[in-house]
């Protein structure tokens, strides 16, 4: 965080000087830290990139924290920007929030400490890696990545620059935390397996092109690192699910429901099973030995993709219990946070690694991607979670990453 110093930074000086020139003697009490807010110079200055439904919702939560000051919003869709800008300025009762179509202009701003990335999945790696290279801390919506290799590069960049990086998923603890506590409580003996049912993989998009409605979207920027394709509203739509009307359906931009809900559900069971720093050693397609697609881990634990959310333990299925303590060794939010957004804010200030630290999020996303690859190839795969490569299967290894369209290299 650049702004914790009480010394006058360039930004504070410019702001103060500008205010002094324009409106002498008027410095708002809010800027000085009244009403329980830290003074402006000590707030975490934040920008939001990707201001669709999820992004603007996240932004609202961040704005609810007095330690955060949102100053910029960015989206390649013109329509989203003005309304979000209006909300930000309305919240702070000023006109400081700027809008951008190109995130590169946002992250070039020295005054921004942290970036919220809620773009479609195919942009996550690019926006967050470029931002971290500019010294920003990150909140990135789940799913973390579009490919396994992207995720590893996100981890490497965060570690290289000592950035705090939290991935989204309020459900890992919010929805599935109690179940994890029960499974890890010892009441049911050792965990043998878990079930998680995120949903299906994406498919290729063959939609024909349509004319781009004027002043609606920066199409080439929306495509970004993905292969060039003609504009179609369903290609880039927000519609949820795999119904073919939103980007989550399509392979070039998303891992489908497998990664979308997988970020929550696999994230939940990997957390509960204590497997969120590793990966499976084998992935078995459904229909043969197992009814469900199955991940087998080196310690013998299994995750079945289907059949609800549950843990199977030595003494049966674990059920959430009243007065359940968080068992020793089960990771949780830092410093009393109650959501990943609050957790990130705490961690930006303390420089601790948040609960959904990028490494854990990457391991979760990897399970999702491995599932998709297994569905695609429809055969048993062996995986080395240390090298993060398939064993003896070059065809599968090719699917660990995808070439990125220039100039979008990471």
């Amino acid at each position, binding site marked *: 965080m650049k702004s914790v*110093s009480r010394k006058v930074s360039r930004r504070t000086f410019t702001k103060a000087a500008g205010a002094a020139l324009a409106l002498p003697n008027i410095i708002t009490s809010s800027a000085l830290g009244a009403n329980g807010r830290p003074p402006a110079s000590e707030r975490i200055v934040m920008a939001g990139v990707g201001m669709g439904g999820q992004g603007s919702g996240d932004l609202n939560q961040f704005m609810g924290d007095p330690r955060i000051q949102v100053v910029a919003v960015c989206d390649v869709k013109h329509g989203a920007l003005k309304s979000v800008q209006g909300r930000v300025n309305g919240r702070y009762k000023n006109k400081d929030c700027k809008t951008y179509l190109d995130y590169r202009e946002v992250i070039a701003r020295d005054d921004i400490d942290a970036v919220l990335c809620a773009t479609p999945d195919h942009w996550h790696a690019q926006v967050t890696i470029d931002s971290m290279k500019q010294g920003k801390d990150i909140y990135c919506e789940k799913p973390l990545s579009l490919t396994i290799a992207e995720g590893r590069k996100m981890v490497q960049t965060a570690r290289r620059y000592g950035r705090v990086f939290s991935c989204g998923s309020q459900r890992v603890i919010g929805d599935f935390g109690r179940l994890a506590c029960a499974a890890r409580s010892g009441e049911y003996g050792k965990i043998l397996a878990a079930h998680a049912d995120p949903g299906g993989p994406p498919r290729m998009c063959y939609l024909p092109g349509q004319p781009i409605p004027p002043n609606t979207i920066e199409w080439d920027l929306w495509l970004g690192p993905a*292969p060039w394709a003609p504009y179609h509203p369903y290609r880039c739509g927000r519609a949820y699910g795999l119904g073919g009307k939103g980007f989550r359906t399509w392979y070039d931009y998303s891992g489908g429901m497998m990664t979308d809900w997988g970020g929550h559900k696999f994230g939940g069971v990997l957390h509960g099973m204590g497997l969120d720093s590793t990966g499976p050693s084998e992935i078995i397609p459904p229909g043969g030995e197992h009814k469900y697609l199955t991940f087998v881990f080196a310690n013998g634990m299994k995750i079945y993709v289907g059949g609800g959310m549950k843990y199977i333990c030595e003494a049966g299925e674990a*059920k959430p219990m009243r*007065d359940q*303590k968080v068992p*020793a060794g089960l990771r949780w939010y830092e410093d009393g946070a109650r959501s990943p957004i609050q957790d990130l804010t705490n961690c930006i200030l303390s420089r601790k690694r948040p609960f959904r630290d990028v490494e854990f999020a990457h391991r979760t996303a990897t399970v999702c991607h491995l599932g998709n690859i297994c569905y695609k190839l429809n055969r048993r795969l062996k995986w080395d979670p240390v090298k993060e490569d398939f064993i003896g299967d*070059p065809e599968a290894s*090719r699917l660990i990453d995808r070439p990125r369209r220039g100039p979008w290299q990471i």
Partner: protein
Amino acid sequence: MKNLNISITVVACAFLLQVAGADVWEDLAKFKYTDGNNTAQEAEKQLRASPSAANPAIEKKLIVVLTSRDATQDGKAIACRLLQQIGTDNAVSALSDLLTDEVLSHYALLPLERLQSSSADKAMRDALSKAPAKLKVGLLGSIGERRDAKALKAIQVLAKDRDIAVSRASIVAIGKIANDDAAKFLAGLEVPESLVAVQLDALLACAERLEGSLSARLYEKVLESKGSHYRIASLKGLLRTDGKKGAKLIVESIKGDDASLRKGVLGLVAGEPGDDLTKAVVAALGNLAMAQQSEVITALGARGDSAALKEISGYVKSEDAGVRDAAIAAVGQLGNVDSVAMLLELGQSRELAAKASAAIARMEGDGINDALISAMKNKDLQVPALKAIVARGGKDAAPSLLKLVNDKNPDLRKEAWSGLATIAGDKHLGAMVKASASIKDSSAQGFALSAIKRAFSRARNKEAAFNGIADHFDSANNLTKLFVLDLATGVGSRRALDMERAALTSGNEELRQKAIRALANWSNASAAGDLLKLAKDAASDRDRLLALRGYIRLAGTAGGIKSGQERTAMLKQADALAKRTDEKRMIVGNLRSGGTPEALKMLFVYIKDESLRREAELSAAELAWNLRRTKSEEVRKLTKELTGSSNKGVANKARSALAEMNKVK
């Protein structure tokens, strides 16, 4: 095994024949997105369905698409996508021809970038010299990913290109190639201001792949830059290449004025391995300002290196609250069984009790619970030890807590009951009930009973857990007996039911009243007979009302009732006893769950009652819909009657049900 081989061969041959004869690959050459046909999906589907043995034949077909002059751009793009999965050296030549095509260059890179083949490298190198600037950027990205050292010289030239996008992509690629030559070139490269960040990142990428002095030199070069995140990255790298030097520089940064750098460096203290770093930071701790001390202690706690424990333990009584609190928390992270006594001693202070308890709760390692249980024998440490072990969820402490529930100290008694509420298991419930029975003060006894209730709510086998409690019923006082009768409601076992029956005839009016209420809320149908009898025979109207309501509720919703007919029959019996409108209204509401024609007929009787018509019609419409698969003429007739209701919702629902009934032959 022989049979298996034959099977595989047969399947592969079948696919080969299909590939040879299929039109989909020829159609792919003509494919256009705008045509809106399924060719691309079909091709993808065939590839997925084919065994690996068929891949070479499919690859040949796809190469034909790529090399065909007449093939469409969209068809070639799809062919590239499919080759991404199955392409081999054989496809490189055809793909390389596309690398200079404005649209298809990126598609050609899809299979080439991740193909393990030196000919793919050569194809990209060759294209780099011919491609226009815009495509060079994409090629440089792929060459960088492949770390093709043979391309280095050409890329070094492009790193100085006037086109900023080309020079940027070149510097990134050199950083990824990351051999000695790449490192030396990057270190000596002069770049414009706009590319400084790219160069610094490339230097770091290079340094991370290299070892020894060259790597250290790169880190030192980056360390000269202004941005704190670059300096953090260099310090982290230097820790790896020269641990002592890196640690020394980190300590200097902690002492420095740059708050942003200090925060980042503390992240390194928390997360980067190395004994040198622990030693250097611990040695510096005493010379830091207090505000910095607390930050550093927190980072050392997160670091998890117990070598820092002794030094940090010296700060748990610091006069500065921030330093003291950080030290207590850090001892929780680094400490072991030997640290327990120190934290318990701190926990005697009201101000520090919660912090010490939280720290102990976090401690890992053997013997900690045993140490706490042992400390509970010491009068001075009882409360902090009790709180700490409860915070740890230490179930082994339940017997020790049971010994404290009758202690002279009321605060301690209360803490013991609270603790048992959280940690007691099924096997402790009986002893808890027994202990609660001897409490004279009713408020204190109520507290104890609510603790038992919380512990009971966790029981996985409710019946067995209840039996443990029931064993002490006869010797318990009235308050406890009332509590047990209430608890029995959710258990619903035979023994629980017998206890309620006994209470009904006990002659104790308080227990009798509790038993009636408990039966009225019973969790299964086993109490239905008792309730019906009470509803018929009860002397007071209040008892009759409670029993009848309970009976109607069980008839409508309780488990253990085998059929709809049985439910309807039970409700018919209730109907005969119901006197008041609200009782009848309950019957109306529950009749739909019977799901029988008989229930529908009963509802029509209620429809005639003006005060019940609305509810009865709604229930009847719902029930008619549930009976829509019936062949019963009578149901059909009643449903038709409902279509004439003045309530539009009811009439519509009835019409829908009737339409469905008319489909059933």
